[in-house]
C-alpha cells in the first residue's frame, strides 16, 4: 500500500531484531474475546485516480450555481496566495507548536493573527482561534460567568439561530441560565427596551451580534451601556468578518467573538472554519484556548512561544478554563494570509464592494426591516419557497427562507450579495422576487 513505506524484507529485519516471527505475535497478548477475527467490511484500497474521480463525481451532485445564501457562511473570493501558503508542508504537516525551537514559523504567524484580530475588533488581546463562531459563543459566555461570578446569560434573538442553539446545548450541563431578548419588528435590530426589562444583577453577559442575523448593524454602544449599568459584560459576536473592514469595531464590548469564514475559507458545507475570541486585557486570565506570546531565547533573540498555559487542560486538567486543545490553526493561518493580502486599504475596499452589491439588490426589493444593513438584507415575499424554486429554474441558488428559524418571518427571505455576486445575476433575482 502506497502510504506504508516498508518492504517485506525490511519488515523481516525488524521482526528479527525484535525477536518475534511475525507482526501478529506482537499483539497475541490481546484476549481472543476482544479481537475482531474477520476483515473489516470496507472495500479494498483504491488508486489515486479512482479517489479523485470519486470525489469529482460527488462534487457534481452538488449545485455550483451563483448563490445568494449568506446566513453565517459567505461566498468571498479566495486569493491564490492563501492556498499556496497553507499547502506548504511546513505549515500543513506540523504539530501544535509546543516545542518553540521547531515551531517559530507557526508561532510567529499566530502572533500576527492575534495582533490582526485585535486591530480588527478593537480589543486588547485575542486567542489563537476557536473551532468556529458558534462554539466561540458558549466559551465567551462561560468566560463572562467566571469574570462576573454570575450565572445568567441574555442573548438577542437576532444572533445567528444556530449559535444560540449551541449555547443552549452548553447550558444544559452547567449552572448557566440562558434567556433571550427580542428584536424590533420594524427595525430588525435588538430590542434594547426588552433587554433593559430582562437584565438583572445576576446577568453575567449580554450577547448581541453585529451585523446581526438579518444583516442589520446593531447599536453596540447602547447595548454596552445597559449591560455595564447592571455589572454585566457585553459580548459582541460577528459572523461576517468582512464587515469589519468598514464598520466601527465594537470597542465598547468586553468580549468579542466570531467567525472568520469570510477570510479566504471556502464554504465547504459548513466547515472547517475558524472562530476567534478577543477581550479587554483585564479579562486575559479567564480566556479559553491557546495564546502565543513574545519573549526571548537564551541568546537574547526575539522568540515566540505558547503562553499562559496554566489556564489550559494539559496543565490544569479539571480546573482549566476550557477543554479546548486542537483548534483551527491552519485555517487561522489562511485568514492571516487573507488579511495580509488585502491589508488596510483592501479590506475597506472589499467591504465597500459588498455594501454596494447588497444595496443594489436591497434597493430594488421590498425590505422587511428599516435599520442600516451591510451585505445581507431581509426581503418580503409571499411565497419564499416558490421564489427559490423559480430561481433554481434559472440555475441560481436563492436566499434563506427565514420561516425555518423565525416563524413570524415566514414571508421573508434573507439574501446576501458579495463582491462575487455579478450584476446580471442580481438583476435576475430582482426580476424573480419583485
Amino acid at each position, binding site marked *: *500500500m502506497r502510504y506504508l513505506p*516498508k518492504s517485506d524484507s525490511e519488515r523481516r529485519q525488524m521482526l528479527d531484531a525484535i525477536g518475534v516471527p511475525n507482526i501478529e505475535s506482537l499483539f497475541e497478548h490481546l484476549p481472543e474475546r476482544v479481537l475482531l477475527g474477520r476483515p473489516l467490511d470496507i472495500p479494498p484500497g483504491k488508486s489515486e485516480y479512482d479517489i479523485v474521480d470519486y*470525489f469529482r*463525481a460527488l462534487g457534481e451532485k*452538488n449545485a455550483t450555481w451563483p448563490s445568494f445564501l449568506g446566513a453565517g457562511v459567505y461566498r468571498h473570493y479566495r486569493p491564490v496566495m492563501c492556498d499556496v501558503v497553507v499547502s506548504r508542508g511546513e505549515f500543513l504537516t506540523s504539530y501544535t*507548536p509546543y516545542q518553540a525551537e521547531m515551531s517559530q514559523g507557526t508561532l510567529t504567524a499566530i502572533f500576527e493573527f492575534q495582533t490582526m484580530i485585535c486591530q480588527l475588533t478593537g480589543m486588547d488581546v485575542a486567542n489563537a482561534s476557536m473551532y468556529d463562531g458558534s462554539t466561540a459563543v458558549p466559551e465567551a459566555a462561560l468566560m463572562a460567568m467566571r469574570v462576573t461570578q454570575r450565572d445568567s446569560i441574555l442573548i438577542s434573538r437576532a444572533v445567528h439561530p444556530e449559535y444560540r442553539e449551541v449555547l443552549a446545548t452548553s447550558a444544559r450541563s452547567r449552572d448557566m441560565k440562558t434567556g433571550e431578548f427580542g428584536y424590533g419588528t420594524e427595525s430588525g435590530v435588538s430590542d434594547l427596551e426588552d433587554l433593559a426589562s430582562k437584565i438583572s444583577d445576576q446577568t453575567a453577559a449580554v450577547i448581541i451580534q453585529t451585523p446581526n442575523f438579518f444583516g442589520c448593524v446593531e447599536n453596540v454602544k447602547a447595548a454596552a451601556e445597559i449591560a455595564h449599568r447592571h455589572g454585566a459584560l457585553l459580548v459582541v459576536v460577528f459572523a461576517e468578518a468582512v464587515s469589519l473592514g468598514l464598520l466601527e469595531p465594537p470597542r465598547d464590548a468586553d468580549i468579542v467573538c466570531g467567525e472568520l469564514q469570510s477570510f479566504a475559507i471556502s464554504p465547504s458545507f459548513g466547515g472547517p472554519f475558524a472562530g476567534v475570541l478577543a477581550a479587554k486585557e483585564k479579562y486575559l486570565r479567564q480566556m479559553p484556548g491557546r495564546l502565543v506570546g513574545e519573549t526571548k531565547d537564551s541568546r537574547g533573540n526575539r522568540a515566540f512561544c505558547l503562553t499562559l498555559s496554566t489556564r489550559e487542560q*494539559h496543565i490544569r486538567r479539571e480546573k482549566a478554563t476550557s477543554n479546548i486543545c486542537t483548534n483551527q490553526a491552519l485555517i487561522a493561518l489562511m485568514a492571516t494570509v487573507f488579511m495580509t493580502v488585502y491589508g488596510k486599504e483592501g479590506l475597506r475596499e472589499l467591504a465597500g464592494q459588498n455594501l454596494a452589491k447588497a444595496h443594489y439588490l436591497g434597493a430594488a426589493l421590498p425590505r422587511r426591516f428599516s435599520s442600516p444593513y451591510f451585505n445581507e438584507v431581509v426581503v418580503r415575499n409571499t411565497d419564499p419557497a416558490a421564489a427559490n424554486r423559480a430561481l433554481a429554474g434559472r440555475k441560481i441558488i436563492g436566499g434563506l427562507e427565514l420561516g425555518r428559524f423565525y416563524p413570524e418571518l415566514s414571508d421573508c427571505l434573507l439574501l446576501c450579495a458579495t463582491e462575487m455576486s455579478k450584476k446580471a445575476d442580481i438583476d435576475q433575482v430582482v426580476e424573480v422576487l419583485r
Partner: protein
Amino acid sequence: MIRKVRNHLNPEEGLVFEISSPGKKAYQLPDLDVPAVDPAQALGPANVRREIEHFPEISEVETIRHFTRLSAQNYAIDFGCYPLGSCTMKYNPRVNELVARTEGLAWAHPYQPEALAQGCLEVIDVLERYLCEVTGMDAVSLQPAAGAHGEWTGIMLVRALHESRGNPRKKILVPDSAHGTNPATAAMCGYDVESIKSNDRGLIDLEAVARAANEDVAAMMITNPNTLGIFEENIDKAAAILHEKGAMVYMDGANMNALVGISRPGDFGVDVMHLNLHKTFSTPHGGGGPGAGPVAVRSHLEPFLPIPRVKRNGAALAFDYDRPQSIGKVRAFYGNFGVLVRALAYTLAHGGPGLRNATMDAILNANYVRTRLQDYYDMPYDSPSMHECVFSDDRQSAKGVKTGDIAKRLIDYGFHPYTVSFPLIVHGALMIEPTETEPKQELDLLADALIDIAREIDDDPNLVKTAPHGTRVSRVDEVTAARKPILRWRP
C-alpha cells in the same frame, strides 16, 4: 554523530507589521459593476470606522516571501519523523488536500437545498458507515470539531441518557494516566472528577474500579491502548463492573491507531467514544488544527446524538432534525466537513485490508524502536507495547539530565521531540509513537540519535542540558512570557 541534518539556510524574518509601509498592495478587486455606495450614508456616520490602525500594507512578493520564510522555521512531517506519543503524527496524503478542494464540495453552502447538496450528504453517510464498521459501534455523529469537542459531546450524551432515566449522576471516573482533556471535559459537562490509580503494571485496577463504581458514577473515561501504549486487557471486565451500576464506558479514541482492523471498542464494552480524524485518519494537524472528533455510540445512546442526522429518504439523502431526545446542536452546521472529505479519501485509499496493515506496521514500528532503545533508557512499565512506547529518564536524571533536555537535544539531531513528561504516572516520561508511515531508515536514525544522546549524557551532560545548539532560537524563555505577557505587536 548527527547524520540527518546540517545547518542550512536559516532565514531571519520580521513581523508583517514591521515590513509594512503605507500604500503597498497585494490585491486588486474587480471593477464594481453596480453603483458605489457612500458608507456613511448607508450605515450612518457613527457606524463607519476611520481606518484599521496599523493593519498590514505589503506587496504580493513580500507576502509570499514572508510566509515562506516563516515556514522554513517549522519542523513538519514532510521533513521527517515526528515521534509525539498519543499525537499520531503520520503522513498526510496530498490527494486528500486535492479532493477537499473539489469545487462542488468546497463551495457547497450548508443551507443550499438538500437536493442540490447530495454529494455532501453522501460523504457524511458513507464516512459514518465506515467509522461504525471500524469502531464496532452502532451510530456515528461527525459533527464535533476536534477530539476534546468529541469528548464533550460524548459526555453530554451520557448525561442526557442518565437524565432520561431520572438522574444525571454526579461524577466521572478518570484513570491517573488519562489525557488532560478528559478531566477538563468532565468538568465542562458539570461532573466531578474522581481519579483512579493504575495498578503496578500501568493498567486499570479492577478492584479500584469496583470500589469506585456506584450509582453516582455517570461514566468512566478510558483510553485504550492507554497512554503507556498498553492494551487494557481487562477493559471488558471493567465495563461489566461499571454497567452493573448503570454507569457508561467512554473511550478516548486518541490511540485508535493501534486498533483499527484488529479490535473494536464496540466489541469490548465501550458505550461511547470519539475518534481523532487528524490522528488515526491522517488529516493534517496544520500546526494545531483543524481536526475532527466524530463521536460513536452504541444504540442506547443513539437517540441523544446531536442534530441533524443524515437519513435516507427513498433514493435521496436528507437531514433529520426531528429528534426529540437529541442534546441539540454542538456546532453550527454539520461539523468540519472538509476534514471529513480528507478522512474518507484516506479510508478509500487504504480500504479495509490496508487499514489493518497500517495498524500492524504502527505496532511493528513502536516495538522496533522499543527494542533498539531498551538497553539505554528505563522502561518502568514493561508490558507489551502497541503503537507507542514510554520510557523514563530515571537513568539520565541521575546525571542531572531530564527528559526535557533529551528532547531539546533530539532537535539538534534533526527530529521533533517525542511527548515530554506525559503520562504523569511515569516520572520523566519519554513517550514515543513513530506511526506506520515511518520507513525503517528513519526509525534507525531516530534510535541512533537517542542512543548517541544517552552516551553524550555519560560523557558531557552539559552539552545536552544546554541544547538545542543548531537552531535559530534556543531555550525560549517561557517563564518571562507568562509573567509579562506580550500577546500582540504594537508600534
